[in-house]
């Protein structure tokens, strides 16, 4: 806390605040991500496309576009966005519905992308996360004290996000994005709800429900799998059951996570050295995607992993600091939404690759390969930087 206060004191010399720390952390994460993408994907990219830098180049283009958008957006006053609140919701819904049209693009058996010009694809779920942040920030502000009564509380927590969440789940079969969207809304309400008891009650019920499902699957999971093997979405149950005993499911649902553990376990304190991962040689399929953190662990060891987690913690801390200092609830909620998005996604990803939670496809923000993801994350950082700019020094708490 002392450090924070000293930092703020230094900032007081100028009258406008720009969070260079946040900018630096984000740029560092992206640059580091590009290196890791090259390391993780060059072998397969060389074999498949004849260009070891194939994935890195595509990611760099998306990051560059995202960077321009980020800087541009950081100049726009945050209040401006509140004028288009219903638009965000409609955009999210329309983009998700576009997945049902021929504009969509399938990969790995899931419909998650919309074709754009120039061979690039857009993932509507990534847009939906941004849209939900902007939409809910305004809704929660407008609800104000009313958020304190059960009816309004439940509408805010469930009724608004549910259509989007269900569409992500139903159309693009993307459980992790659905969880993230819901998680963002939950964290925003967590911060804003006047009656904290309600938040805690819902949290307790949710945690209890998750625990109950896990206990049931722990004891009856294998039986369920045997009797309902034809049920749609049964693979999700398999993933949870595989989570209990990875080696038993080493050839199917446990395969990816087990390979990830092999990679992490091979890393040791300082890793094998950049580029020296063995697991990226097709042992972990598409190592540049969701499992990139395990390659990072294998090559850079516990030290590398610790540094990356610390970078995310600094990023979250900067968001917290900005949300803290802004006098405007709407801006604060936008920042909390972005912070929630990045925190949930980063920590869930790391939890998945370390088999702390069952496997669900989730990418590591700024580092995993994925153009839509990085571009829209940078737009979100642009929003946070914009909020930061609005802080008049000496105007905050003193």
């Amino acid at each position, binding site marked *: 806390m002392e450090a924070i206060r000293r930092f703020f004191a230094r900032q007081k010399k100028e009258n406008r605040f720009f969070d260079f720390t946040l900018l630096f952390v984000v740029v560092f994460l992206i640059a580091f991500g590009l290196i890791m993408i090259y390391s993780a994907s060059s072998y397969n990219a060389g074999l498949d496309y004849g260009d070891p830098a194939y994935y890195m180049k595509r990611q760099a283009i998306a990051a560059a576009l995202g960077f321009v958008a980020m800087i541009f957006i950081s100049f726009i006053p945050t209040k401006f966005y509140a004028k288009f609140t219903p638009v965000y919701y409609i955009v999210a819904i329309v983009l998700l519905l576009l997945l049902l049209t021929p504009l969509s693009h399938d990969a790995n058996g899931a419909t998650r992308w919309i074709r754009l010009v120039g061979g690039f694809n857009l993932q509507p779920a990534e847009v939906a996360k941004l849209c939900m942040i902007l939409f809910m920030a305004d809704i929660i502000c407008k609800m104000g004290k009313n958020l304190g009564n059960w009816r309004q509380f439940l509408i805010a927590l469930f009724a608004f996000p549910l259509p989007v969440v269900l569409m992500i789940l139903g159309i693009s079969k993307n459980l992790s994005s659905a969880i993230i969207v819901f998680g963002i809304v939950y964290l925003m309400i967590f911060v804003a709800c006047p009656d904290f008891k309600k938040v805690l009650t819902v949290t307790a019920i949710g945690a209890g429900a998750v625990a109950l499902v896990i206990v049931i699957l722990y004891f009856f999971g294998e039986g369920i799998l045997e009797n309902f093997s034809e049920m749609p979405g049964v693979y999700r149950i398999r993933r949870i059951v595989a989570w209990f005993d990875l080696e038993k499911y080493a050839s199917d649902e446990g395969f990816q996570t087990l390979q990830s553990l092999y990679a992490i376990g*091979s890393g040791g304190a300082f890793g094998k050295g950049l580029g020296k991962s*063995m697991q990226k040689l097709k042992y972990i399929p598409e190592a540049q995607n969701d499992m990139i953190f395990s390659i990072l662990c294998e090559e850079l060891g516990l030290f590398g992993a610790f540094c990356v987690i610390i970078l995310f913690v600094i990023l979250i801390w900067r968001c917290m600091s900005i949300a803290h200092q802004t006098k405007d609830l709407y801006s604060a909620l936008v920042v909390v939404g972005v912070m929630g998005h990045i925190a949930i996604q980063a920590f869930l990803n790391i939890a998945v690759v370390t088999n702390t939670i069952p496997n669900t496809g989730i990418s590591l923000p700024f580092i995993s390969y994925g153009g839509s993801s990085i571009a829209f994350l940078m737009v979100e950082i642009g929003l946070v930087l914009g909020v930061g700019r609005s802080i008049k020094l000496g105007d905050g708490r003193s």
Partner: protein
Amino acid sequence: MQERNKTRHHSRIFILFMSLLLVASVLICRIGYIMLIRGEYYSERAEQLHERERYIKAARGKIIDRNGAVIADNRAVCTISVIHSQIKEPEKVIEILSRELSLPEDKVRARVEKWSSIEKIKSNVEKEIGDRIRGYNLAGVKVDEDYKRYYPYNDIASKVLGFTGADNQGIIGLEVIYDEELQGTSGTILTLTDASGVEVENAAETRVEPVKGNDLQISIDMNIQEYATQLAEQAMANNEADRVSVIVMNPQNGEVYAMVDVPEFQLNSPYELNLAAYEEEPAGEDYQNALNAMWRNGCINDTYEPGSTFKIITTAAGLEEGIVTPGDSFHCPGYIMVEDRKIRCHKTVGHGSETFTQGIMNSCNPVFISVGLRLGVDRFVDYFQQFKLTEKTGIDLPGEAGTIMHRAENMGPVELATVSFGQSFQITPIQLITTVSMIINGGTRVTPHFGLRTLAEDGSVVKEFEYESVEGLVSEETSQTVRELLEKVVSEGTGRNGYVEGFAVGGKTATSQTLPRGSGKYIASFVGFAPAEDPQVIALVIIHNPKGVYYGGTIAAPVVRRLFENILPYLERMNYNEQRAE
């Protein structure tokens, strides 16, 4: 209100941040646990996954005969395979491989175009062709050198030597018994590969060189073995016999000079049946049974009723016990009554009055029945055991058959009578020759064997094999008496056809009807040794199911005579016993 909102979300944001910090700490602990505590386990598993072990076959040791002639050798051959992902010019590869290996093009195409880490095209390719294919320098084509067992003598001593399987391991015969000595240690190349098995470039290879197996020197003399095989084949042809077995051994130490069991089989193509012998080609289980029958070594794997050759053993027991002397008188009316059974002599009119010496010369059954009855069941059984007839000889070949004998408590005088002249029980040929050796060599039971020593590549001795021998099982006097008696059998008795000019040969004939009696099938045999006063070589010839004349003295004894006529001067020259003593 604004102010209250603000403080509220301030504290909430702080709670949120602290919770996230907690999550981050948990994850760091989790990663630390996986990396530092479970790291060894996971990295070991990962390494197992990444490493591919390629074996380098060790050259199998040679088998050489007692004079150094190579009887089992290795020939360098090549295995040609393709690695799909490394092939750059598939059409050229298909064209060259199908031409060089004379394989149909579509067959090669199927293998080349199959997506697999490594696909074998052909193994056991001549080294010359392998070198030529290597010369084309085709990407993705692998030429691995390999060894294939090769037997220069082909079918000679096939049932003794045995052969090896695809992994260089012995399947039957000496190749099995001395597998460990011959095998050597295979080398390995450890390489790192990606998940599809493609080797990672520039990764360090760990290479462990293979160690060649030791050579095995055996007691067989290929000259004797070849000649014995020739004689056996002639005897089989002349007598239209089913099978002819010949064992030639040194009775003093058990070294086998030759072991023949015709028909033999082709060692270089052990899985090809001699189809001429079958009306239709056997299939499935029948095929395997036919192969097993073809590989079977009748000298040790099968038992037979020894017949009159066994009278040597009855004689030794009688002499040893002192219940008979060569001069004892007997009378043979052509039969003998044992209890209520009339057992006939082969000479139906009878031999009349005769001494024991004449009895053995005539191979007179009543004489030996009388000796057997004088011994009685208990003493006979004791001698049977003392002579180790109930134990296996311990020869260094797999699958030696045991003796099939009456249980002492089930033996009455009739059984005793039949056993006395070699019927109603079964032993292996190797058992008979080993026991006769013991009786004529002064009472030492030797272990018949082939393996003499293992040699390193430079010819130095690695290991000299030792074999058990038990002395004093019969007295020297008995041994000498039996030798003299058996010499008389050859010089004046039923074994006259075994007589060799210039050598004192001892021996005994046998003719026994096979079970069931009355089938008209006989086994004719002769066991002979020389020189009679100090036996240096003993030979047993067994002719199974001859047509026409079936008397051992008529058809088996001449085989031994012809064998001895050739090998006795040869053995004198080679002087193997002297050699060993040096």
